[in-house]
């Protein structure tokens, strides 16, 4: 394999790789602004200048192909002074308004100014002033002064989103970014430009001035928006989710995620209409009740129906573990055969980039965990029909808003004699329920989801319920979380009285006389890896941050 | 003189002496704070009453309303007994200190001393020895290491310094040829004060008196930086007040003893030569006693705010290697004097 020398270190590369690529592969970071591993090379920022022996001038590492035996220096006097000079040039017209810039703390320019700059400017003339508050689209705000014209956003729109929306206008120091006439930055991936913008020129309107990045904790988890299951970081301050950012996973979402997933999936966790504590219907309205009271009621009610009169609906939004415990509960404790879950497909809503038709994150997992009708059991459509015909009188539903699927279900579900729902938020389905268990959201529990590729990925809790503790449960903690007390206003965060489905089912099974001993979601997963072939040999550690693809050949046989 | 009249006179004397001590203690505390403030360029108590004069009463009232806390590990009866013992001993020691020559009311000769006993000095030595028990008891019964250490230090200190104190007093007794405090005072007529006749004895006695009353620079039993509060660490409310009272009462007694034994008691040199009436002379003499005592008390306080505390080894060094030989030396000096005078 060919190799070259980088700062005295031998680095192997594949023919055709640039110096910066080959270095990045082995974890060496050569300073760069305009270069991005997923975008074409532009070579305009000049900060990656390196000294190559036997070359008369410095070369940019991002567009110089590595060749065998090349000797590259990033820290030679020449390279260093060139980098300092580039930084000085870049900072000439940069407003240095870090105090009011949302990018501060995760800004490449800030970092490099710290690492590679002399710290003083010799520029005494007036800076060029540009528009500071330009709305480029529904979600993105543009600050012309901060822009260093690296063209990453332009290349993203052209190459990844596949729409030509952004371009440079004007020349020289007046150059700035704008949308093409009559166009807006409105592609479904527009917020990705705020991620790749190396400075604070492009920022999210949704997150604008919400929080400094260092005040938040970040948790590596999965987006719940569709069956893609994009890897994300969930940023939380004061027990409230403030933003999601994509997390690199080449197999699933690369560096990107869609605006829909980024903006609209976590809001239900922060919503005011969360189910806080168990509820029972009394005189037509849902009223709060104690856990023990609700368990007692649910047990006695469930006991009063024939096995054929009960149906259980799992959920493509619940985790594999929860669906597994639910299926086990339905089969062995309730002894019923009518088990299924509702699909949430929106035909033709997906695209070729990331967005999928299936709007639920775990339909694969629900199926695999055992949520499917047993022999002679009814499937979802037939269960609904049976309810309509009053053959099925009791329905146990977890984490699914059936009425949102079809308004007609409202009429059907109201025919039920007993309707138990696990739900994280109040919605038109819970209105019809007799008992509502508060369900912990995907941001409040451990568990796994399986995406459309058959990749099992792990959820981590980022938000506390009343039964959780950030430090004891090993959740991500910000500085405020670490040092806050109950006497600080920012320590008094909103916490929901909610439990993951498996925990409630475990209590219910115990109340019905079958001892379940699950203490954590991981214990359930370990049991699954013993009983389900596809999960064999897996545990949470092996699933890890990036997930594991299940055996596809076997997977094909499972019909979904 | 009927027995009832004697009892009545004694009771009046006791009441008078006790109230004098208590009031003096109160204002001694006040002046201690004032003097310390002056020495440190501060103002001192000035909030309660004019010039803060009511401060002692406010303090007592505060202590009175405080919760009485007894530690779980304490030996309760002895924990309660100790402060009472301390106070009783402190108050009863004053019984043998004469504050003036006998006075005559309706031809009744009333000695200005509660008990004009012929072994008064022995009585004082005996009582001060018992005083150690109060501190040792409190230290042991509190069930706290600070208290225990304070108690142990206190007993060691008292035993060490009682020897030089005893020898110093012996010098005085050889001179006066009596154990009766009245006689001792009488023997110091004119300028024959023991302080001048046997200065070494005077110094050793004063130093021993400081040590016996646990005053700085000898306050090791309650050394705050080391022992929190020493033997009274675990005391609160009025029990603490009793110790506090006893400590200051002991100071007054020490001052009274110094005046009686070394500074001529109530004697004012050559006052009888002025030809004043008996009543006036007596009054002046009583006043003289109190003025002398006040001076000594001021000196005790003044020393406290000037000198730092000794280390424990220094304390023992001085006690055994300096004070004890000095007091022996004093005894020899007195013996020589007596021989020469005869």
């Amino acid at each position, binding site marked *: 394999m060919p190799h070259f020398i980088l700062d005295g270190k031998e680095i192997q590369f594949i023919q055709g790789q640039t110096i910066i690529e080959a270095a990045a592969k082995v974890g060496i970071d050569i300073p760069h602004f305009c270069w991005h591993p997923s975008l074409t090379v532009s070579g305009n920022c000049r900060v990656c200048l390196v000294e190559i022996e036997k070359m008369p001038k410095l070369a940019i590492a991002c567009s110089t192909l590595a060749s065998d035996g090349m000797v590259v220096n990033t820290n030679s006097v020449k390279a260093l002074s060139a980098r300092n000079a580039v930084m000085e040039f870049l900072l000439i017209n940069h407003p240095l308004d870090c105090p009011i810039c949302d990018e501060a703390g995760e800004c490449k320019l800030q970092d490099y100014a710290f690492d590679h700059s002399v710290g003083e400017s010799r520029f005494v003339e007036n800076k060029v002033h540009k528009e500071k508050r330009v709305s480029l689209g529904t979600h993105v705000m543009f600050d012309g002064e901060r822009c260093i014209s690296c063209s990453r956003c332009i290349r993203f729109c052209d190459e990844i989103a596949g729409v030509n929306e952004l371009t440079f206008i004007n020349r020289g120091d007046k150059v700035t970014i704008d949308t093409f006439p009559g166009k807006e930055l409105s592609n479904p991936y527009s917020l990705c430009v705020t991620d790749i913008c190396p400075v604070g020129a492009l920022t999210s309107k949704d997150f604008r001035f919400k929080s400094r990045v260092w005040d938040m904790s970040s948790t590596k988890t999965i987006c719940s928006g569709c069956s893609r299951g994009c890897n994300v970081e969930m940023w939380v301050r004061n027990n409230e989710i403030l933003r999601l950012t994509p997390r690199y996973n080449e197999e699933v979402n690369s560096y990107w995620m869609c605006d829909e997933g980024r903006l609209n999936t976590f809001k239900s966790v922060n919503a005011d209409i969360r189910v806080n504590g168990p509820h029972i219907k009394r005189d037509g309205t849902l009223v709060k009740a104690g856990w023990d009271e609700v368990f007692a009621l649910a047990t006695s009610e469930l006991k009063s129906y024939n096995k054929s009169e009960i149906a259980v609906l799992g959920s493509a939004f619940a985790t594999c573990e929860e669906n597994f415990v639910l299926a086990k509960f339905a089969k062995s404790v309730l002894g019923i055969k009518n088990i299924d879950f509702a699909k949430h497909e929106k035909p033709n809503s997906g695209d070729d980039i990331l967005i999928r038709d299936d709007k639920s994150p775990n339909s694969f997992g629900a199926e695999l965990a055992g949520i499917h009708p047993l022999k002679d059991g009814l499937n979802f459509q037939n269960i609904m029909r049976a309810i309509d015909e009053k053959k099925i009188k009791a329905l146990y539903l977890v984490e699914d808003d059936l009425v949102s699927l079809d308004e007609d279900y409202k009429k059907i579900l109201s025919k039920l004699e007993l309707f138990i729902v696990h739900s994280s938020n109040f919605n038109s389905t819970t209105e019809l329920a007799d008992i509502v268990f508060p369900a912990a959201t995907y941001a409040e529990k451990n568990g796994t989801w399986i995406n459309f590729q058959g990749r099992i990925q792990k959820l981590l809790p980022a938000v506390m319920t009343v039964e959780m503790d950030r430090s004891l449960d090993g959740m991500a903690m910000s500085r405020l979380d670490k040092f806050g007390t109950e006497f600080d206003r920012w320590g008094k965060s909103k916490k929901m009285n909610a439990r993951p489905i498996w925990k409630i089912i475990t209590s219910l099974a115990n109340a019905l006389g079958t001892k379940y001993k699950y203490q954590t979601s991981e214990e359930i997963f370990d049991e699954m890896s013993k009983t389900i072939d596809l999960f064999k040999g897996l545990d949470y550690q092996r699933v890890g941050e990036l997930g594991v693809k299940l055996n596809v050949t076997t997977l094909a046989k499972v019909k979904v | 003189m009927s027995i009832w009249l004697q009892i009545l006179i004694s009771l009046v004397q006791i009441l008078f002496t006790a109230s004098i001590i208590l009031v003096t203690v109160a204002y001694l505390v006040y002046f201690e704070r004032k003097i310390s403030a002056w020495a440190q360029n501060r103002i001192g108590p000035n909030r309660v009453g004019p010039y803060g004069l009511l401060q002692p009463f406010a303090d007592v009232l505060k202590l009175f309303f405080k919760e009485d806390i007894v530690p779980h590990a304490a030996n309760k009866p002895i924990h309660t007994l100790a402060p009472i013992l301390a106070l009783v001993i402190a108050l009863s020691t004053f019984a043998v200190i004469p504050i003036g020559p006998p006075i005559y009311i309706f031809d009744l000769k009333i000695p200005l001393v509660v008990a004009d006993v012929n072994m008064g000095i022995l009585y004082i030595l005996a009582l001060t020895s018992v005083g150690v028990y109060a501190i040792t008891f409190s230290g042991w019964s509190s069930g706290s290491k600070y208290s225990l250490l304070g108690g142990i230090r206190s007993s060691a200190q008292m035993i060490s310094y009682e020897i030089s104190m005893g020898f110093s007093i012996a010098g005085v007794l050889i001179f006066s040829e009596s154990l009766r405090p009245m006689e001792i005072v009488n023997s110091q007529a004119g300028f024959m004060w023991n302080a001048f006749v046997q200065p070494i004895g005077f110094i050793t006695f004063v130093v021993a008196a400081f040590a016996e009353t646990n005053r700085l620079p000898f306050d090791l039993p309650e050394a705050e930086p080391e022992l929190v509060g020493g033997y009274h660490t675990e005391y609160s409310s009025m029990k603490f007040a009793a110790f506090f009272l006893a400590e200051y009462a002991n100071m007054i007694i020490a001052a009274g003893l110094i005046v009686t034994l070394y500074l001529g008691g109530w004697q004012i040199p050559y006052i009888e030569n002025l030809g004043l009436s008996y009543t006036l002379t007596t009054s002046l003499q009583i006043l003289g006693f109190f003025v002398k005592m006040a001076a000594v008390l001021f000196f005790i306080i003044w020393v406290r705010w*000037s000198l730092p505390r000794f280390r424990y080894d220094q304390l023992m060094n001085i006690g055994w290697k300096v004070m004890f030989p000095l007091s022996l030396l004093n005894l020899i000096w007195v013996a020589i004097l007596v021989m020469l005078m005869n």
Partner: protein
Amino acid sequence: MAKKKRLKDLSLLEQIYLPEIVKGLALTMKNMFKPSFTMEYPEVKFEPGASYRGRPVLVMEENGDERCVACGLCSRVCPAIAIEVQANDTDKEKERYPERFEINMLRCIFCGFCEEVCPEEAIIMSKDYELAYTNREDGILGLDKLLVPVSELQERIQFLRKYK
């Protein structure tokens, strides 16, 4: 530093110790007649100099606006985590303003880091040292209590410009 005197270095007179005691007594006696330094607080109030670091306050411009841009640097640098800032959007030139700015005086240690780090000279250590509260909530000061007109803070601002 003066050389430490050991016991063996002492002269006979010093070893006797009594003269030294008399010296000490004389010193305290001398001091008893000197005037006292005590300031009788509630009646007489201490007026601190410009270098004094009292309660941190926010500068209010002449037009009534706060100077703060809610950058949160004070909050970040605060070693006691006494400051909480919530920024929001404004149409004014500064773009960003503190929607909520709270200093928990029960946490504050008066180190002055917030003042030092502030890029806008917007948080200033005032001379206010009378900070007693009867409950925890009162100790958390919001914008209403924090904003102080810039004219009242000139002395400290001048001091900072000179020495910071």
